């Protein structure tokens, strides 16, 4: 019987070429990073079960899920607001079946959908990050408007994106996260990279820890 290997492939397998791109000399104004190996679960409270959903989340992550567009760090996970009475749970993929574990934790109070393969996580940071982002995002990313932990469901290149600023990332070290739909990732990566080239880009692959 033949052997079957199940190599995983990122949607950016081809588009993401690690290393330096654009800019002049060795300057790096923007770092672009794909974060692989993530678990992403959409949690939506069942009808009339919002309070219990919050309680279940608190039990699982030691933190209440955000009820406004924010991202909060909890135990081993970041909870990102994605709409009224719903949020996403982002964590590093482990060996066990995380989806099953969460399903048990929210049993009867929330509906869960595994989106670990439905989205691709791209991180953008660096001194030129906000300027580059201004070319493909309509969001106002000024500290006073979009502080650390702020989140938005928005669009890039007419494509839906979950966007948030890493909780705790301040000033020049602000890190912006984008969850883009997997099938659009290759195309959006090129748009994002093109927007960053003038500042000098360091592109890399990271693994969720």
């Amino acid at each position: 019987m033949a052997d079957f290997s199940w190599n995983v492939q990122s949607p950016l397998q081809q588009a993401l070429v690690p290393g330096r791109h654009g800019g002049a000399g060795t300057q790096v104004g923007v770092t672009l990073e794909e974060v692989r190996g993530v678990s992403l679960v959409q949690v939506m409270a069942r009808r009339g079960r919002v309070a219990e959903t919050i309680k279940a989340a608190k039990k699982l992550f030691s933190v209440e899920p955000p009820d406004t567009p924010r991202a909060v760090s909890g135990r081993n996970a970041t909870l990102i607001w994605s709409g009224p009475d719903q949020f996403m749970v982002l964590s590093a993929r482990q060996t066990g079946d995380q989806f099953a574990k969460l399903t048990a934790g929210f049993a009867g109070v929330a509906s869960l959908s595994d989106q670990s393969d439905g989205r691709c996580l791209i991180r953008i940071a660096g001194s030129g990050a906000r300027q580059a982002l201004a070319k493909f995002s309509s969001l106002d990313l000024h500290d006073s408007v979009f502080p650390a932990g702020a989140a938005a469901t928005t669009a890039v290149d007419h494509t839906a994106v979950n966007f948030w600023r890493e909780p705790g990332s301040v000033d020049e070290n602000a890190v912006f996260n984008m969850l883009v739909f997997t099938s659009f990732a290759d195309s959006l990566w090129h748009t994002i990279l093109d927007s960053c080239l003038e500042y000098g880009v360091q592109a890399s692959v990271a693994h969720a820890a």
Partner: protein
Amino acid sequence: MSGYSRSEPLARTAPMEANVRKGVTPASQSHRLPGDGIIDRRLPLQFSFDGKTMTGFAGDTLASALVANGVKLVGRSFKYHRPRGIVTAGSEEPSALVEMRTGARREPNTRATTQELYDGLIANSQNRWPSLRRDFMSINQLFAPIFVAGFYYKTFMWPAKFWESIYEPMIRRAAGLGKSAELPDPDHYDKAWAHCDVLVVGAGPAGLSAALAAGRAGSRVILVEEDTLIGGRLLSDGGEIDGLDAREWLRGAARELVSLPNVRIMTRTALFGVYDGGTYAALERVSDNVAMPDRHQVRQRIWRIVAKRSVVTAGAIERPIVFPGNDRPGVMMASAVRTYVNRFAALPGKRVALFTNNDDGWRTVETIERAGAHIVAVIDPRHEVPAQYQRLVDTYDLRVLAGVVSEVKGGVDGVRSIVVANDKNGLTQRIDTDCLAVSGGWNPNVGLSCFHRGKPTWREDIAAFVPGSAPKGMATAGAANGELSLSACLREGHGAGARAAAECGAAGKPGEASKADDEVYAIAPLWHVKGKGKAFVDFQHDVTASDVTLAQREGFESVEHLKRYTTLGMATDQGKTSNINGLAIMAEATGRTIPETGTTIYRPPYAPVAIGAFAGHHRDENFHATRLTPSHHWAAKQGAVFVDTGLWKRAQWYPRAGEKDWLETVTREVLAVRNGVGFCDVSTLGKVDVRGADAGVFLDRVYINSFSNLAVGKARYGLMLREDGIVYDDGTTSRLAEDHYFLTTTTAKAGPVMQHLEFCRQVLFPELDVQLTSATDQWAQFSIAGPNTRNLLRALADPSEDLTNEGFPFMGAREVKLRGGVTARLFRISFSGEMAFEISVPARYGAAMAENLMIAGKPYGVTPYGTEALGVMRIEKGHVAGPELNGTTTADDLGLGKMMSKKKDFIGRVMAGREALTAPNRQVVVGIKPIDKARRLRSGAHVIPKGAIPGPQTDQGYVTSVCFSPMLDQWIGLGLVERGRERTGEIIRIHDPLRNEDYEAEICSPVFYDPEGVRQRG
């Protein structure tokens, strides 16, 4: 200053040392003054105009460099090919339009007055042949009577067919302006967003005061300035502010603004539009000041600026006076003369005559005299020297003439003399001059404040329109608001900036407004000096005063009619120097006042914007975002040809070496499936997780058939209608758990169906406990089809999985373990009519799945197939798809009427029962086979009864889908045909006037292949 600001004018301009070293002698800048100016004489730049090499300095515009080189003639006019020169020194320029650059970067109609000089710049005059000095078409002047207002409408009426073949090409050759590039633009453009509390438009004294006040108060400020430098008229007219020389004050203001981290200065950025919700559009000319953009840099960038408040301090434009010969090269706006002398140290003329009806024009006297040139005469129709300028008359022994300029004499080299007429006694005298400076007063830039249909109001004391009501959140200040003195600009700007900041919640102190002496500004309006010879209103479109009065005589009295009939103000300058003069002349002709006559509607863009800038990044392969399937790169490696399906790239077929065309490839793929096994990536189908206690009830309401009674572990084909009873979409939906359904849609409707379902959930049935998530991108899904499908799957699946007909019956759906430790979802559904499964794994395993299917199916000759083979097999099986679910068909039209449940309500049920939707003569889906088996059937062809004459009366439907059927060895198709199901076996006529074909075909069952469905259940 922020990272985007490029206000340092010299940083990006390369010196021409290389050329100097090569021994190129800079041509003499015959009209360059020794004075300071704001140019960098250490950086000479070489450029070419009409093939002649000249030099200028960094800081020059093309226009100022031409002035410095003594060039007066820069182009030929639009209709009459009259010699034209430089009229202004700003973005309002109607006359000095040139072709910039060459080849693919050639750009016509570029204003020489805003084009920054760079080393190696190449510009050419336009609208002349064979040369600028000897322009053949200037003979048009002799035929001037035919080029009057409305000549297009009057002259080229007959015969109509001559229009396209003769008149239009002739007019285009004779008129028009520059030629656009014929190659794709090699440069890139992009668009960006910016956000602020207070947007200040224009960085003259008022704008700087506003930005300082708002910035000091602590609000987020963006200051946009179309020029390369901030300062506005301060750069040209100087003055004294807070006891300092204006340029010294300007340096201090710039330093303070740069020191404020909440202030962003964007130079080379022209605001051109005002939109809803405080959104503004601006064009940044990022790389227009260099021959070629840097690598990774764009040529131009459009900014969308979102501001809580805006302060428009866009200044005013000096107004020409309409008099005979006013378009002669060397006739220049007085303010432009001062700009060329004071800012650029370039002298437009050595013996300058000044024609002004207002006090401001008199400033020109001192500028010219101090530059070492001479004012030969001041012509002022007001018969009185303004008190504050009386001292100039004495100091310079000025010749002041009360009257008007009634004639301008000269050649292609420009003005040689003027004739001055005393409007009281009619006496004339001739004055020799090489430059006539003209000032007819100032028009505040009301455009931006009027973009939301605001109407400007007339102010008698300055004889100009000022902003009326401004769009929400916008204030106007300074010259843009009709306050023409420096002191008022500083005061008003500061006040507007401070107010805007306070309205945005800034709590800081705005500081004190800077001060300057109050100046007197008086004007006696003078619109039109009548006399013989052409007096131009609109220089760019060659509209004369007599065109305006002719339009009036012919009944085109409304300003909107005047505009269209004469084309006044319709050129790329949008009539910035001409509109007010035109309507003033119309007012006089009709005996109305100017406010009674009114203005035309102001619309964006305020300044020309290249289409390329609007397109931005979205061109060529980036025209729109694309979606790739999980097996895309694998398929590309197999040599797949891709087809665009919406945003998706799908493998259409997989050609092999030696196959002569796509049909051979597709036929091979179909036969491989029908005789063995094949697979196809169907991940593009929309997938929705439907969860919740009421998921089944919810689906019962959106589908025509029932789903609450579907057993867990089973799949069912579902059809949904629109509210109006027409079929919306179809697909299979499986029940994976009591409270979990997995719904699929067609590729095309995935987005709209998700939207529809959310609408149903949130608006129609909020009482149901149901949650929806799009899972389209989560899963890599493959259809595996053919008699060897089960064999392939047995090789791939864990041995414990029972894949027999009993263990996994037709329409079964459940998770299965695969060898190697991956769990998949397996659905026994068939689109091809073969024994088939769809298998899905998380998208990260998509590429591996394709490879493993190849391994597992190798003994059975497994063949990957594309969308075309998929289409062939579905047509052979009579499955409907997009061409049949086309927004006009009912469930019954598709042959699926029996699926409509009578036991429950569902969306579209009532409306589907309407008379017309249940009429017996509806066009329904049938199969169609040409009688001649060699005949290729084509979709779109009409179906008419045999023997009938084709026409609307006899038309009975059309062919919707076609394919070459390898199983029937002929072309077959599906069609929508009137009463089609009753007509099986009837011979009909296929009429295809588009492709000029006409032949007979037979109506048959749409299920061409395996009508009993034995194969898919086997």
